[in-house]
């Protein structure tokens, strides 16, 4: 047996072995989808797809799931998770809008405007920002930003005006959105910068020769050419933002509350919330209770599904990029 291994491998055998090992990854992914959905199944079974909608208080529903212990009655599976889905969409949406704007502007800065010496600093800095662990962002959020917002930005009158429905401590939408933006922007910058550098210089020079100033040429020609790269970057950033659990769990106030504009736009920004991913982290201890476990896996299944959709979207978006020979 050992002898056979020590002898030079025939190509055929090598190909088969390597192929078989590679397929393990595929098996892993299938197992992941199957197992997560299997555990989430009771929620789908009892609620259909209407658990994605709103109705009742999710706080009492989750508390009920926790309280019913190991043999939950069918009623314990009742779930309407709209508040946390809304929280997820809200935080991701705000962070994404801010992030795209900042990422495009700073990519232009890095590739075009920055003096050579500054550019040499900026690229590693962006790389560093992209690789700082989320728990460090969370720590800075909860120890620096939250006290600042809670003590200096939220006024006493704002606190009293909503004290019947929610307590404003500083943990909430604003801090989540700011921290999430700082987290996802570097990822987008990396892709956008790469695409910007790949656009042939002559295209823009042509525009400048026609009388546009360099910035206009940049916006009109280069940015237009890399639009698919910007969308691809946004897709990647969305995936990151949707799945961010620990940082949001630290700074969101961990409250089943859906921030509402009816309290006024500023208070809206200070209101606490929960997202799909952060709820899983918050309730990790209760995962032994079957009903709650099923709910948490249902949140995970929803995240998995959106990640799947996003990666298909990312693939479709990258297709037209090939036309410009831009790798993204």
């Amino acid at each position: 047996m050992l002898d056979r291994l020590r002898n030079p491998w025939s190509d055929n055998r090598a190909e088969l072995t390597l192929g078989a090992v590679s397929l393990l990854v595929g098996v892993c992914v299938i197992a992941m989808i199957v197992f997560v959905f299997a555990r989430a199944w009771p929620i789908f079974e009892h609620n259909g797809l209407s658990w994605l909608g709103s109705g009742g208080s999710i706080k009492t529903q989750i508390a009920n799931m926790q309280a019913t212990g190991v043999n939950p009655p069918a009623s314990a599976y009742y779930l309407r998770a709209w508040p946390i889905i809304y929280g997820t969409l809200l935080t991701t949406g705000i962070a994404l809008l801010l992030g795209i704007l900042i990422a495009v502007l700073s990519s232009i800065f890095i590739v075009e405007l920055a003096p050579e010496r500054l550019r040499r600093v900026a690229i590693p800095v962006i790389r560093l920002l992209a690789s700082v662990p989320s728990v460090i962002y969370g720590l800075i959020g909860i120890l620096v930003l939250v006290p600042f917002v809670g003590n200096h930005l939220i006024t006493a009158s704002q606190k009293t005006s909503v004290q019947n429905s929610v307590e404003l401590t500083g943990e909430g939408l604003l801090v989540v959105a700011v921290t999430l933006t700082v987290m996802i922007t570097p990822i987008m910058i990396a892709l956008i910068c790469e695409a910007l550098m790949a656009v042939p210089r002559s295209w823009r020079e042509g525009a400048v020769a026609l009388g546009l100033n360099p910035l206009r040429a940049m916006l009109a020609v280069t940015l237009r050419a890399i639009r698919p790269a910007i969308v691809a970057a946004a897709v990647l950033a969305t995936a990151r933002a949707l799945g961010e659990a620990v940082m949001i769990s630290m700074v969101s106030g961990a409250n089943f509350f859906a921030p509402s504009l009816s309290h006024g736009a500023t208070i809206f920004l200070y209101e606490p919330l929960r997202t799909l991913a952060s709820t899983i982290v918050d309730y990790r201890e209760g995962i032994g209770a079957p009903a709650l476990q099923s709910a948490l896996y249902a949140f995970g299944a929803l995240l998995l599904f959106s990640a799947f959709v996003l990666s298909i979207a990312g693939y479709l978006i990258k297709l037209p990029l090939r036309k410009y020979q831009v790798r993204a």
Partner: protein
Amino acid sequence: MNAFVPDLPVSPPPSSKPGRRSSLWSWRWSDRLVLLCAWTAGLGLCLIAAAIVLYMGYRGLEYLRPSLLVTRPAIGTSQSQTGGLLDPLIGTLLLTVIGIVLAFPLAVISAIWIAEYGRPSWLARVVESAIEIVAGTPDIVLALFGLTIFQLGVFAPLSFRAEGGGVYGRSFIAAGAMMSLIALPPLFVATRDGLRAVPAHMREAAFALGKTRIATIRRVLLPSVRSNIATGVTLGVSRIIGDTAIVVLVLGETLRIDTQGSIPGLNVLRGTGSTLTSYVFENSPAGEGEAPQKAYAAAFVLLVFVLGLNLLVGRIGRSQAQSTGMSGVGGVV
């Protein structure tokens, strides 16, 4: 040579910068505003990064004592009694080793298969998209997946058991296996892109010398993509040490390394513990510890690791760029 072409006066090469500067004030105000925004955004990000590093450095140096690195965490009422970072450090190291040891063969072999064989092509596409799905899956979902499979009866001996024999699916092995999925995509992409960048004539030369495909891969291709693999490993390590969700869910939340069973070595792997990230999380106001000083100290150590890995990636990338002429800001994600 050609007498019919007159000697044109040589004009100075057009340089954009002086022209841009002098004409800046003739731009439309909206253009100037965009320019201002771009400068603000770029400089702002650099400032944020500098602020994060400096603030964490300041806090870290304020609270980190060398003795913290060699004492074990303990349960105490005040921050002076809760011990140090030894167990989280060991935990981070262990998870990194397990994760890379599991991910390395899988990623490199898949990359070789995809880049060099890739037949049938639909199957290769399936494997590639599977890796893309893993890359896009949030770590919290991977953690849920890990809990599920390690609660199965087959894997029960690999993880922590409760008093009554209940299987929690939480152990270093379980967390390390999930960490390997985190490290897999960057390692795979780095190796695959490296193999694809190897010029075809190197393979042809090896074939012409009578080497088989697999021998070519072993003797010619793998040595030439060594630096790509090194970059991939570094990226994978930095993903692993920065991950919190998997640690918090799958490693069990014991600050100290809790062993399981009596076989030395294996009992640690089957036991639960903590890493730097989960230590920061638990000691922040969000966890139970309420020991921000310890959290700052651990976060500082973590940040130093990440910075070091970043420098390493940069250095490997530079030496690669020197030897092959490739460069770029890629490889960030």
